[in-house]
Every structure is written in C-alpha cells, then in structure tokens.
C-alpha cells in the first residue's frame, strides 16, 4: 500500500529511518486509514470532500509543508476546476459573508491550526450558529486535528530522510 504521508515526506526506502518506520508499519497503516477517513470518508456529512481537500491544502500551506501542500492541491484539482470557487486552499482567502457555514468553517480551521490554545466555547457556538450540525462539527474538528498531526509527522520524516 502506498502511504500519502511517507510519499509526501519523500522518505527513503532503505536505511535506518525506513527500518524504524517498518517497525511501526501497523501505525503507519492506521495513519493512512485515518487519512482516508478524514479526506475520503464514506459518509462525509455536510463537509464535502472537495472542501476537505481545500481546507487540508490551506493547513499544509499555513504549516509550510510543501510535500503535503502539493498532495492536497493535486487531490483538490482532481475534483474539477470549480471544486474550490473561493480559493480557500490559499491561506488568507475568505468566502463571501453570505456563505455562512463555509465562513465559520474557515475561521475554525485557521484558529485551530494556528492557535489551538486560544479556542473557546464561543468558537464551537459560532459553528452551531452558522447552522452546522453537531455531527459535522465533530467531522470538521477531526479533519483539522488529523491534518495537523499528519503535517508534523511529515515535517520530521522529511528532515530525517534528507540527512545522510
């Protein structure tokens, strides 16, 4: 099975790092399965897969992880040229205020990626008030949390893999 994370981090196929990952192959398989559950779920609820890819790309760019940013940009491009009409994959871009759900989601993604320590009850209330159901709030939170994990694992593996 090809794993998105190791591929994006350009992990060498032999050597001490490859050996260490082989010891944890079950965990890397579960990481890949978590990727699929977050980005390509069977039941996406009201958080469509194209939006998931766009938000993941935005997070990867915020965290300056080139390999995963490219992966998510490619995933998004595969959904068609109008999959991300407000170009939310680019950090800083905002949907129009009339797009209440989407605006609330982007605000949450930016906050919880950059300053999770500052998140409060009001930030979850803002999602509810925008009309997002509880199950979709959990889906969105799960996406943001997973991608932030994946980005950091990739950050370490890419530095370790580059070294001689």
């Amino acid at each position: 099975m090809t794993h998105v994370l190791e591929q994006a981090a350009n992990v060498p196929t032999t050597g001490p790092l490859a050996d260490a990952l082989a010891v944890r192959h079950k965990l890397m398989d579960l990481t890949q399965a978590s990727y699929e559950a977050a980005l390509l779920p069977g039941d996406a609820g009201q958080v469509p897969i194209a939006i998931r890819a766009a938000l993941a790309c935005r997070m990867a760019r915020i965290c300056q992880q080139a390999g995963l940013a490219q992966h998510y940009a490619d995933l998004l491009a595969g959904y068609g040229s109008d999959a991300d009409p407000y170009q939310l994959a680019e950090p800083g871009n905002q949907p129009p205020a009339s797009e209440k759900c989407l605006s609330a989601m982007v605000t949450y993604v930016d906050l919880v990626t950059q300053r999770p320590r500052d998140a409060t009850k009001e930030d979850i209330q803002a999602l509810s008030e925008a009309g997002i159901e509880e199950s979709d709030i959990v889906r969105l939170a799960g996406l943001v949390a997973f991608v932030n994990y994946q980005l950091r694992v990739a950050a370490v593996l890419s530095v370790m893999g580059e070294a001689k």
Partner: protein
Amino acid sequence: MSRVIHKFTSRIPTWRPYITPIDFDNATPAQREALKETPSNTKISDYVLVLAHDPESLRIRTSLFNGIMYDKGGLSRDERELGAVAASVVNRCIYCAAVHAHRYNNIVGDEKVMQDIFLRGKEADLEPRIRAILKFAMRLSECPPNVTDNDIQSLRDVGLEDQEIVDLTLSTTLFGWANRLMHTLGEPVSNL
C-alpha cells in the same frame, strides 16, 4: 457548581463537552463498532461519545492512539508521555496535560519533572535528555512546526536512536491531534 480549570495540574479534572455526546443506547451499528475499543482501554467517556458522531474516524483513531502510546520497543513509556505533555502544554490542553502528567508521574514515581514543566515550560530545570525531548516536542507542536537538522541532532546528542525519534514524533504529534479535539470540543472542570 463545578468550576472551569485554567491552570496546568496533574490532578485529573472532569471533561465537560460543548457537543452533545451520542446516546449509547441509540447508537448506530457503526458507532457501536467504533466504541468497542477505547483510548488506554478505559471506560467509555463523554469524550469518546462526542467523537462517535464520526465513527469512521474514531474506530481507526483509537487503535492508532493505543499503538502509539503502548506498542512495545523503541521509546520508553515515560518518554512517550513526555511528548504528549509537551504538545498539551503548547496547545494549552489542560485536560490532556493532566492525564498524561499523571501517567508520567506514576511511571517514574516522582512529580518533580512535571511540576517544573507546568511552572516554567521550556525553561524548566531538567536533566539533559528530558530537556532535549521536551524542547524538541514543544518546537514541533508550534505553528508552523519547527523541525531542522539541528533539532534532530539535539536528540541524537542525548542518545536517541532513529526508532526513538520516530516514536517521540508520533506521540507528540498524536497529542497535537488529541489536543485539537479535547481542547476545542469541551473544557476541563473541577471534580465535584
């Protein structure tokens, strides 16, 4: 009336969700399946019942969580808990920090290290290996994550092998994940 906790502690608080936990008696088959295994094999908590709104992710996440924290070999149990606490301090997840400081203290049989970390963070006065692990894990947990050759070298300098560095990375980043759920979907309150 229970009070919200804002300061780091190794006394485990109660977690009060902002989202309604699912009702186990009315759970769907997919939700029941996802609830079969629990983090650290504890009883089904409100936290897990909140995450069960997304059973597809929860089912995998619990196995991953338990593997990263408990699978044999590589980094010691206490140093995995140290990575978890470092992330939780950066992300200010009071609940996760308390649970994993408590576990760390139980493993090493001493509370001094955690007391110092809670009081002084990165400036804590620790022995070199603990200090290097804490610093690496805290830098990795920032946004954007800070990881350079020098950061990896600082771990090698105190004796960590590639396997241990991979394991530390997994336990630290797993808590970047857990903190973003626990700290945003609910809050720690004092026990009644």
